[in-house]
């Protein structure tokens, strides 16, 4: 592990026991662009996520958070190191993971309902059955009235929620979420956060959650990890969040312990954000 990893205080009951859902061991990722030197986006770094654990990843923009999720999903092959999923070395795509992409990933030629239903039909579920379940999930994410809309007729936040339903309907063991609430307003973010926590509490998937909102990261997670500014980004901080569950993502922000955690994490994150910012201003 890294040298700078923060050791959790002894009194915290961490989900230490239990097998690992995801283990990124010393992975490094480079991008080769013709005519330019190889860009080393992620330096050798490690991240372990236990079964049922909710881990948030924060870091300055462009540091490599999406890249890390892509490697976990099996969409990117790391140049070095290994990716292990439930103890097995990952080859090809990660079939145990559901991935909610940062960018729009819905099929523009399918309605919201069909976009969700197709995720089940691919696995052999009958059409009517798939549609019934899809409808149920769209209702859960608050889109019951929008089932027949095409993606271009939905707002950015609504599209994200269709994406969420599309991922959750398959019941993946591992959830990869890349700024899922990015385009939502502050209130809806909190509502969606609470919704996500409630859904998660039912079957406790392992979650890797990328966000640029530190408060959100703390409110939702069991652990918050910080990535350093790229290139050669690494995980440089690892903070267990010892706030009691079940949580209300709005009320928890008033907890004094929340503020302590926020201060600790922000102190370290700030330095990284300044680095990125400093690089890009003349």
């Amino acid at each position, binding site marked *: 592990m890294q040298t700078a990893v923060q050791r959790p205080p002894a009194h915290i009951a961490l989900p230490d026991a239990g097998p690992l859902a995801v283990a990124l061991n010393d992975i490094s990722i480079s991008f080769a662009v013709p005519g330019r030197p190889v860009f080393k986006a992620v330096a050798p770094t490690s991240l372990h996520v236990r079964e049922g654990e909710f881990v948030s990843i924060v870091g300055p923009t462009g540091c490599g958070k999406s890249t890390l999720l892509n490697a976990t*999903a099996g*969409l990117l092959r790391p140049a070095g190191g290994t990716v292990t999923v439930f103890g097995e070395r990952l080859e090809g*795509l*990660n*079939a145990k*993971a*559901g*991935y909610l*992409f940062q*960018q*729009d*990933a*819905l*099929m*523009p*030629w*399918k*309605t919201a309902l069909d976009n969700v239903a*197709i*995720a089940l039909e*691919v*696995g052999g579920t009958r059409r009517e059955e798939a549609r019934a379940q899809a409808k149920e999930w769209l209702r859960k994410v608050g889109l019951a009235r929008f089932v027949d809309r*095409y*993606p*271009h007729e939905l707002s950015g936040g609504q599209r994200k929620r269709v994406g969420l339903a*599309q991922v959750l309907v*398959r019941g993946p063991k591992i959830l990869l979420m890349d700024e899922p609430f990015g385009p939502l307003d502050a209130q809806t973010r909190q509502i969606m956060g609470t919704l996500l926590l409630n859904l998660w509490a039912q079957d406790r998937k392992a979650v890797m959650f990328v966000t640029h909102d530190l408060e959100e990261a703390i409110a939702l997670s069991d652990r918050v990890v910080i990535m350093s500014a790229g290139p050669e980004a690494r995980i440089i901080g690892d903070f267990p969040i010892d706030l009691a569950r079940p949580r209300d993502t709005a009320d928890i922000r008033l907890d004094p312990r929340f503020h302590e955690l926020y201060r600790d994490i922000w102190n370290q994150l700030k330095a990284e954000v300044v680095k990125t910012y400093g690089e890009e201003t003349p």
Partner: protein
Amino acid sequence: MHPVRLLFLQFLVALAVIGIWQIGSTVEIGGDYLLPEFFFSTPVEVGKRVWQMFASGMIWKHLSITLTETVLAFFIGSAGGVVFGFWFARKPVVAAVFDPYVKMANALPRVVLAPIFMLWLGLGIWSKVALGVTLVFFIVFFNVYQGVKEVSPVVLANARMMGMNERQLFRSVYWPSALSWMFSSLHTAVGFALVGAVVGEYLGSAAGLGYLIHQAEGVFDVTGVFAGMFILAAFVLVIDWGVSGIERRLLVWRPQPAADHG
């Protein structure tokens, strides 16, 4: 704009053109005709001729032949374009090997092929269909190729994360994307199918709109030429309406302002 108002304005344009034509060809201005009847005929004459063609029923045979050729050229050309478009887009090596030949074939003026097709396929409808196919094929081919290539990598990654295999990717991702590109060029493709048919008929045949126009030209029957052209133009308009209707049905998922007509 209100559709009735639009229709009215469109009608006005036709009226103005016909008016100028009629006056120019029948009213003497300074001892001379602006549009001598021998070269330009007159709208009234052309109208009479069109009416005769329909009244006698002789036009239907020619229309139906041209329509058959157009439809056949369109479907055969499209089918070929779709198959090869997909094949080339999914197999970059094949695309790279054939690239110069595709460009050469596409740059060839199709009119020079017409006599060859007549030699091979005779003077019947198939030589005209072949000419139309060579036009339609490339339009559809390039659009399908582009449509498959331009699938958003994120949509593709998302579909693969769902566990789609190649066949499912084809059905749910590549095909709809290619189809939308193909449809954006549908008007052009149908237009070219018709051009192929008419040019083929013009260059040698015994029936069809192109044949009618050619016959009229052969005896300096300007009225006949204009009547043929008028019927051809009206025919294009009707086909175009049909295509627009199909397009609206199949591409409901596309944002309206982005709908472009190729």
